[in-house]
């Protein structure tokens, strides 16, 4: 066993056909390989089955709502003459706005922090700092939501929101009364929640940039900041973008923390200061109390809409990354 292993290192360059042949030979040589392959395949199949079962059960339990409203469920969602209205379009707008606010706030801070941790911070500071940031990821959503409601909300109502209203150009985004609970507050709370994802993944991407790149930049006389800006960050760009896509996924789907700070107003927001609602907050506010039948089916319909949006964002992100990788591969 050990001798064959030793012989395999370094791996010889093989054509694909040769590789498969050798793999088969190896499998025959090691009986454990076959049972592991079975295990591997079973794992993958179970996983696919779970995803499939999940999607099917969601579609089945929301079919009543879609049958009732048709495709218009995706924007109006209304199914009853008087009550029980799910203005899906409003929730989608709210979801996109809060996620955008979160990304705008979290990406510069997150990538900046990651760059600081990987390039500038002394070791005695970098490791405790990254532990602290990982701790944010460990804080439960409801705690973040409570903090947003009890601590951030008064600060936003009395200081932050009036401050933005005074800035001439931004005034268009920040008009209307400042209550505290708002799109802006929800986006800020989300930014806090997605920060650890961005920092951790971007940091991994930054540290994995080859030292030769840094040395080359140095050798050409770049300052420390120029090294980061021109060699390290471009080298880690794909990884940073991947971190943003993951973070976006979390921001899109967050429920309880958003429900606590967004104000739950089912109307189209007229500014970032107006209270609103997201798909997640609407689901959590209505699911527990939904009556069986069309009512519950419509709430599950909102889950389907959320799933579609999250899937679109993820697939779009993956395509973007793949195209970039391919383009870079062509260049190199």
């Amino acid at each position, binding site marked *: 066993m050990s001798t064959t292993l030793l012989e395999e290192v370094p791996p010889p360059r093989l054509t694909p056909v040769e590789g498969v042949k050798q793999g088969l030979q190896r499998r025959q040589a090691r009986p454990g390989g076959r049972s592991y392959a079975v295990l591997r395949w079973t794992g993958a199949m179970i996983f696919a089955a779970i995803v499939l079962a999940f999607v099917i059960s969601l579609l089945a339990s929301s079919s009543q709502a879609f049958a009732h409203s048709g495709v218009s469920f995706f924007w109006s969602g209304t199914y009853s003459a008087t009550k029980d209205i799910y203005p899906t379009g409003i929730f989608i707008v709210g979801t996109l706005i809060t996620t955008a606010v979160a990304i705008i706030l979290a990406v510069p801070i997150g990538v900046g922090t990651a760059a600081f941790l990987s390039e500038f911070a002394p070791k005695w500071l970098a490791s405790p700092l990254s532990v602290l940031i990982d701790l944010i990821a460990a804080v439960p959503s409801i705690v973040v939501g409570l903090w947003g409601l009890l601590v951030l909300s008064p600060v936003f109502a009395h200081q932050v929101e009036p401050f933005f209203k005074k800035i001439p150009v931004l005034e268009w985004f920040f008009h209307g009364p400042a209550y*505290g609970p708002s799109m802006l507050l929800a986006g800020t709370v989300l930014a806090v929640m997605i920060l650890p994802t961005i920092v951790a993944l971007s940091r991994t991407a930054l540290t994995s940039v080859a030292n030769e790149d840094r040395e080359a930049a140095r*050798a050409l006389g770049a300052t420390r900041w120029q090294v980061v800006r021109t060699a390290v960050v471009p080298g880690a760009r794909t990884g940073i973008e991947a971190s943003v896509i993951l973070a976006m996924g979390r921001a899109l789907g967050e429920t309880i923390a958003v429900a606590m700070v967004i104000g*739950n107003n089912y109307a189209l927001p007229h500014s970032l200061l107006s209270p609103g609602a997201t798909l997640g907050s609407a689901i959590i506010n209505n699911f*527990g109390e939904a009556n069986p039948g069309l009512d519950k089916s419509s709430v599950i319909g909102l889950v389907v809409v959320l799933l579609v949006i999250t899937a679109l964002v993820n697939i779009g992100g993956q395509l973007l990354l*793949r195209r970039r990788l391919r383009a870079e591969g062509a260049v190199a």
Partner: protein
Amino acid sequence: MQRGADPRRARAPQAPRPRRRALAAKSSTVALSLAAVAILAAACGSSSPVASKKKPHTTSSSTTSTTSAGTAGASTTTSAPTTAAAAAPTAHTVTAPPPSSTACSTSGGPLSATCDTQSPSFKLAGAGANSIQPFFTRVFYYYSQADKGVSVNYSPAGSSVGVTDIEQNTVNFGDSEIPIKTPATGTGGNILQVPVDLGGVALSYNLPGVSGGLKLDGPTLAGIYLGKITSWNDPAIAALNPGVNLPSTTIVPVRRADSSGPGYDLDQYLIDTGGSAWTSSAAGTTPSTKWPITNVGVGEQLNTGVAGFIQQTPGAIGYVEYAYSLQASFTNAALENASGSFVKPSQSSIAAAGAQATNLSASNFSIVNGTGAGTYPLANFSWTLIYQKQSNTTLGVVLGKLLDWVTTTGQAQASALGYSPLPANVTALAHQTLLSLQNSAGKPLFS
């Protein structure tokens, strides 16, 4: 500056590529595994009702064995019921009768007899109305002092959750501010509805410079919650409050984002008194626990969320259970009742509303907008929901005695918190309802 551009070109061409690819692969697996976790969680959630529906079957089969053991007087079993503290009345909670208490373990004893269940201890699980939580917390504490064998875990997730949980038989008792439509049934059969407390709904406001007792009537409140009356010095409010110096502060109406009993009461009040402006809006003419006008003002979760928002926001007005308003020392509006008098919420004005319920039942429960000079118009009884057939006789007896204590002796704890003690006829109704509790064989639990 020129130098800055050079390093980019100087980058080693092949070196970063495989690494980046590896990283992208890594991040996509992270994405996949995150999705997997979410999917698993959701899959569990969706499958749980099925599981809870299956529970009663297993319970009934195991209960028969317990009752037979109980009649045989098997008191030597030492299996600790504390470990079986699970919320659901599943097979796990079925325990041998306590050694020293025949009155508690066999059917046919009197309902109000003292019951020594010091060991083993019984854990009951309940869920429901958020509004009753202060009362339940206090009254269950005192009950556990009187009878150390019983402890209750109450989850104040909201009335509708209480209804769903009891209907699916996942708790020992549910609680709802609004009784369910009769005849009430769930997976465990017929559901009994027992009135356990009398509370009021305060319209609290945060208006610096204006003291409590601001007068409001139905049409004005409807205007506020429809977004038509938007400032505190609106002529409609000023006309009701001559001599009060009203500021021009913007009104921020706050409501419950989840379904609620207080919301139902206020909806009922506005349907009765708010005029056509309210009934021709999305609110309609049938009161609903889900607040009907969701595109005006701010929605917060539970009484605590609404109370917290009122506290933080000058200009805010919102409806909260009176107990919460009292706890936060809010200023409350005086509301016009059916006799035309403006009454502030207080223990006595809520009690006066409760006294109107001369013919109370689960299908005739509304005491909103009563008559009388001192009657507060927004009041309601809270209803505890239990199965008539208790699959576990021992737990059924414990539960019956607990609720009987809550509706009699326990009422002394009500006034300190802002609730009013139940009127005598309502206590009698509760007692009568509890007497109809049965074991799984259909025999009455109490005599």
